[in-house]
Structure formats: C-alpha cells, structure tokens
C-alpha cells in the first residue's frame, strides 16, 4: 500500500488551528472552530464547539450535542465504526479506540497511503465502549499521555478493590471519588458493579446528564441517584462520585468525614496524587500506559510513527530503538496534564 514517492507530511500536517488534511480540506480535532472537522471523541480538548461541519461517530456527536447546547449551527455527519466516506480526495473511516463511548481512531487513505490518527486510546477492556482495533498503516499518529516507563496501570479490579477495602476499614465514612464527567465516571460505576457493589451510587449534579446519555446508549449503571435529591440521607459509608474540582469544595461538608479518592492515571505517582489532595488514589486510566503504547506500536506495524499529546521524547526514543522512524508532532490546543484523562 505504500507509495514511496508520496511524503505523508505533504497531505497531513500540523497548523496553528490543528492537524490539517489538505486533500480533504478538513482538520482532525482542531483547537478552534473551523469549516470542516473530524472529531475522534467527545473530550473537551478534542471536541470543540462552533464547527460548521463535524464528522464523528453517532455517539460522539450525541456527546457533543449534550455538551454544546445541541449545536444547531453545526452540520453533523455521523459515521459508524467500520463504515467509510469520501471527503474531498480522502477516504475516511472510523475504528474503535477503546477510550470512551464513541471514541474512534481516524483512518485516512490517500493515493494508496494510509495514516491512522489514534486520538486517545487504551488497550484494556472497558464495558462502556468497544475495544481498540489495531489498523495496519504507513503512519501511526499516537498519543503519549502516559509515555514514560513509570506508568504501568495496575488491573482495574485491583484498584476498585482498594476502594472497597477502604469502605470495610472505614465503614462510616463517605467515600468521595473524583472522576471526570465523561467516560471515567461511567467506567468507574461499571467497574464497581462488576466487583459486585450493587448499592446506590450517589452523583454530583455535574455528572448527571452524561450518565443519562450513557444509559440511553444501553450502558446499565444500576442504582444511581443525585446527591441533591437526597432526603434524610447521612451518606455514611456511601460512595459519592463528583468532578475532581468538587472534592475540596464546600459542597462536601454534607458528607460524613469524607475520604477523598481520585480515579486517574496520574494517581500512580505519589507526588501527583498528593497535589490533587487524594487520600485514596485509584489508578484507573482511559489512556494506554507505557506497555500498552509499546505493544500498540508493534501491533499496527507502521514504519513511521508521529508522537503527540504528552511525553513525546520517551516514546520517540523507544520507537527508534526498535527501528521505527519516529518523530514528535506538536499540536496546538492540547492540554498537557490536567485535562480529562
């Protein structure tokens, strides 16, 4: 499939507005509003409001409508996983990325050359979205959020076990778990259910609408309820999910000696967990860890890898050491650390 004469950087390259595909005249996850955008998934640093045309999975478009007041001014083009469509001179298809509901890798084909933009991805099972599918390609553009050998996310059930054991040791205290509203929240609920926790899980109001959206997409979250709807509830020994910023908010004063927990890949590093005020850090990430990144480079088998979005140098170093032509690709508008990870 390789056309040796064609330089991939001639048809897909970074600009101040984002990654631009010239023969298709569209951007992938642009940092600002543009005429035509292809969106990998619904997180805020990838999906932004105001595009005139947006192409994404139906689930991602639903998430964007929920977040951006229905987007009446954006022409929306849903594309299901596995289907393809022609945009300008480009064949575009979307393949599951295993990151959150609706998340996709963008597969671009032009004159026999194939580039895959991974967006954000992970390789372990997640009950809220289909798993990542490796697509053989000429150029693989990978994220690098957790691209250091210190990041080895433990099995999810080990981390959920930590939360459940803490509930045994401190059965009267409210366990307040900081989660990102989109993806992490629903995944943590599903993990708790899988671990046999069938009690009511309480939610901060900011998490409500996306949980409803997940439920509408057939993801069963069990007995969930809003903290604000509680009457005569002491929250003793309850699990309450909230956005990370609410953990040290005045809102928490209604709870019984709350234990602040945080579910994030960053919790693997102690100093980071302390910075976030977590007393019970749970290493649960929606991104690939170091071994998953390395495994993915081998699985897709691309001779060229462009690394973006995180700690590029370590992954570039690793890719080169196994004979891959790797370079860092600096994209505008990516939040380095504290985004929805």
């Amino acid at each position, binding site marked *: 499939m390789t056309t040796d004469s064609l330089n991939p950087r001639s048809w897909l390259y970074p600009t101040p507005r984002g990654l631009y595909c010239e023969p298709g005249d569209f951007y992938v996850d642009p940092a600002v509003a543009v005429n035509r955008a292809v969106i990998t998934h619904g997180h805020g640093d990838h999906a932004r409001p105001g595009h005139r045309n947006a192409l994404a999975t139906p689930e991602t478009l639903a998430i964007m409508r929920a977040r951006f007041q229905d987007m009446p001014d954006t022409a929306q083009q849903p594309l299901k996983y596995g289907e393809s469509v022609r945009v300008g001179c480009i064949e575009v298809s979307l393949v599951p990325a295993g990151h959150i509901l609706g998340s996709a890798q963008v597969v671009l084909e032009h004159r026999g050359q194939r580039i895959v933009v991974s967006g954000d991805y992970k390789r372990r099972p997640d009950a809220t979205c289909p798993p990542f599918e490796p697509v053989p390609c000429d150029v693989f553009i990978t994220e690098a959020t957790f691209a*250091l*050998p*210190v*990041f*080895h996310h*433990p099995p999810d059930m*080990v981390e959920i076990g930590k939360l459940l054991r*803490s509930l045994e*040791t*401190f059965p009267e205290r409210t366990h307040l778990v900081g989660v990102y509203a989109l993806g992490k929240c629903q995944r943590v609920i599903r993990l708790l259910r899988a671990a046999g926790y069938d009690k009511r899980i309480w939610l901060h109001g900011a998490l409500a609408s996306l949980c409803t959206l997940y439920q509408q997409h057939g993801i069963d979250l069990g007995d969930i309820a809003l903290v604000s709807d509680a009457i005569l509830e002491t929250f003793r020994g309850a699990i309450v999910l909230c956005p990370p910023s609410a*953990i*040290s*908010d*005045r*809102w*928490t*004063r209604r709870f019984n*000696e709350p234990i*602040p927990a945080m579910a994030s890949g960053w919790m*693997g*590093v*102690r*100093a980071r*967990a*302390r*910075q976030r*005020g*977590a*007393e*019970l*850090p749970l290493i649960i990430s929606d991104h690939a860890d170091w*071994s998953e990144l390395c495994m993915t480079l081998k699985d897709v088998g691309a001779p060229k890898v462009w690394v973006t979005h995180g*700690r590029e*140098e*370590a992954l570039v*170093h*690793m890719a080169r*050491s196994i004979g891959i032509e790797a370079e860092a690709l600096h994209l505008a508008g990516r939040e380095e650390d504290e985004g929805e990870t």
Partner: protein
Amino acid sequence: MQAFAELLDALSFQPARNAKLRLIEHYLQHTPDPDRGWALAALTGGLDFPGAKPALLRSFGEDKIGAELFHWSYDYVGDLAETLALIWETNPEAGPPPRLGEVVETLQRATKMQTPAILKRWLDSLDATGRWALLKLLTGALRVGVSARLAKQAVANVGKQPVDQVEEVWHALSPPYRPLFDWLQNGGPKPSTNSGGAFLPAMLANPIERAELDTLDPTHFRAEWKWDGIRVQVSSSGGVKRLYSRAGEDVSAAFPDIVEAIDFDGVFDGELLVRREEAIAPFNDLQQRLNRKVVTSKMLKEHPAHVRLYDALWIEGEDLRALPFDQRRARLEAWMARQPRPRFDLSPLVQFTDWAHLAQLREEMRGDGIEGLMLKRADSPYLAGRPKGPWFKWKRDPHLADCVLMYAQRGHGKRSSFYSDYTFGCWRDAEGKRELAPVGKAYFGFTDEELRWLDKWVRDHTTSRFGPVREVEPNLVLEIAFDGIARSTRHKSGVAMRFPRVNRIRTDKPAGEADTVDNLLRLVPPSGNG
C-alpha cells in the same frame, strides 16, 4: 510484605491522626508474628539496613530500561525509590512475594555481595506498591507521617492498655516484639521493665488560669519556675545511660555532653537547657542542638547542654514514684547535696504565701528562659500520664501582635474544604515603600464558628490562587498570640514565632494600624551565639 506495603501506602496518603491509628491497629490485628513485630520496628525507626545505597538502585534502573529512559523517569517522579518501583515490572514466574519477616531476616544475614541478587528477585515478585515499600524500608526513610509514639499508641490500643504502659516496657524489648504482643493480645505476662536505662512514663501537668487558682488551697501546693527548655528524663542503671524526651524518644546521641556527665544510678525528671556560665540561653540556642545525628565539638563548646532537675523517680535501685512530692523532693535535695554534679543542678522551689503573692512573683519574673510557673501538690505521687488535679502549669501570658492576613491554605482531613491555615504578616519599610512581610503561620486558636467566618472571608477576598493557597486582600487584622520569638534566617521577615495561634479576629482594626516587624524585633531576647 504486601500487607505491610498496603499499610505504608495508605498511611502515606492519610493526614488524619485517628485514621492513621485505625490503619495501624487494623494491620497489627490481622497480621501474624513475626511480620507485625518487624512492621512495628520499621514504624518506630528500629530497623537499619546498611547494604542498599542510592547508587545501587540507580544502577538497577539503568540496567532495566537504559540510562535515558531512567533519567526521564526519575526526573518526572522525583524520588529514586519510587521511580525504580514503578519502572520495574512484576515477573509472574518469580514466585510468591516475600513476607516482611523474610525480608528483614534475610537482609540481616546477607553479605553485601549477595544483596543485589536477592533484591532483584524480590522486586520481580512484588507489585509496584510492594516494591516501593521494600525500597523505602531498605533506604531507611519511610516518610509516611507516623511517629514512634503514634505507632506505640496503636499497639497499646490493640491491647486496650494505656500507651504509657507500652512506653514503660518498650526499651526493654527488641524487634519483633513477641513478648509485647503475647502480653497485649494473648493474656501473657507483662514484659519486665527491670533493665538498663529504661524510660519511665512521665507525669504531665494541666494548664490553669488565675481565676481557677482561687478554688485551690495554696498551702497544699509547691511552686517551681517553668523553664523554657525541653522536658527530659535522665535514666541510668546497670551501666546503661540514656537521655529521653518526655515522650520516650531516646535523644542521647544528640547530647553526648550530658550522657558523659552521668556518673550515678537513677531516673530523674528535669529540663534540658543550654547554659553558659550561670545564664540560661534562649530556647533558640537549644534548638540548634536538636535533631542532629552528629554533634560537632564546636557545637558542644558554644551550646553546652545542662539539665535542671526537679524530680526523682528512682535513686540507686529504689522506686520513689509512690512517695508524695515533698518526700521525693527531700530525697532529690539530699542526693544533690552529696557531691558536686557538673551539668546538673536543682530547680529551686519558689516560696510564696498565697495566690496573690505568687501572681506578683510571676509578674515580676521577667528573666529569659522562664515560661511561667509549675504548681505541684505536696502530697502527689509520681503518676504516668496527665492526671487531673495534682500538677498544673501556669504559663506566662503570651505575647500578642496584630498581624494582617496574607495567604490562606486549605487544611487536611475534616478541614479539607476550609481555608484553615493562615499566613500573616507585619509592616516594614523596604526601599522607601511600606510592605507586608510574612512573620508566621497559624492553624488553630479559633472556634469552629470563627473558622467558618474566616473561610468565607478568604473566599470573598481572594486576589489570586496558587494551587491550594489563596492570596487575599491585605485587609483583615488577626490578633496573634505566641509564646516567644527569635531571629531566623529561614524566614523572609527575619523572625520566627514560637507556637503562634489566632487569638482574636480584629475586624475593628484597620490593617494599616497592624504591628510592624520592628515592633516584633524588640521582643527578641538578646542571644549568646544564636
């Protein structure tokens, strides 16, 4: 090892004392001997492994993933043991992870040559938390915010005994403390305290105010000056000589001048001071001598330590603790009179006729090195802990300063949603401009209601944020109470307060009328070399 690792992990993230106690108790109750004994030794600082040096850990890491990746990783994590724990991957074929007891006993026997191979095998078999705990244990810096006292409190709670009972037997025991657990959990005999240089739990006093004194009969009490040093216990028997803090921490190593001067058998209660000729140096001078592993001869010469004795618990094999205070005092005076005792002297009794007279003496005593008065019932036996009634401390009134709130930081645990740690400043002139210089930090002294008020004030008057810290408009005056003040090179303003707390919120006072740094400097006592 895995259970111990989980304990250390939980402790390292848990700021609240009671929750830390619960975690340790839970571990001690659910872990068999000898592992729990070794864990107790680790938490109380009783283990030492000379074989594992940082250079060894670094070379492990570089061999594993290459120098570049290891360098980037270490750079990001900032802690060598943690970096190595994270980059090392568990090898499913390495067999079961070691028990804590196996780790300790193996390393105590292993030669320096054998250590690296043993260590690698364990790193392979443990998970990331287990590796982190193992490496922290080996490098001797647990840093999980647990004092030896707290660990002993947890052991005592497990056996439903007062912590002083554990302190009393502690120094006669060694890891893994089987007799201790036998006694506390299995109804075994209480371990013997009859061994060399043991610590005996100290008797503590309750604070008292002038008004309460009128309910007491002055003829029942004896008075002593309350020295501004550190309460210590001098313990010597069977040729073992020790100096302990009042919590039972062995501080002998930092004060070789005192230990050398012990040429007697007995256990005495007294105040550790720095004394030059006849003069007692300010507390700050004593502070220079604390927390040092190595004491230089210069330090010994310029900051000579001294113990001012005020009670005798044992003298030459005889336990005096059941005797009334007056009799112990007579025995102490007679013992001191027998021969000169360099580096030790007697804290004199303060003679008074009634409370008004004593109040007057307290007012007049402006000398340095005195914090107030101690009042002890003439008939009081020496009791462990802080019994109510026999002993009182009547502190000198604190200094007060009006300071301006500059920064507020969120607290921990129950206070994590409250801005409860306050940095305050005083005015000074810098290059012709009047500015606030931070002079201290206080996080108590206020009521719950005042805390809610302060928290709201901080939120409503924030000018900028730095992580958990907020800078506020310099408009709120706090009256700060503090027990002393010293010059300090570590603080921008050049002064450091002792025991500062929020005394009152002065909404009535304009910030411009708060105190100046110069006002504070006038309170600094003149120092010898400090």
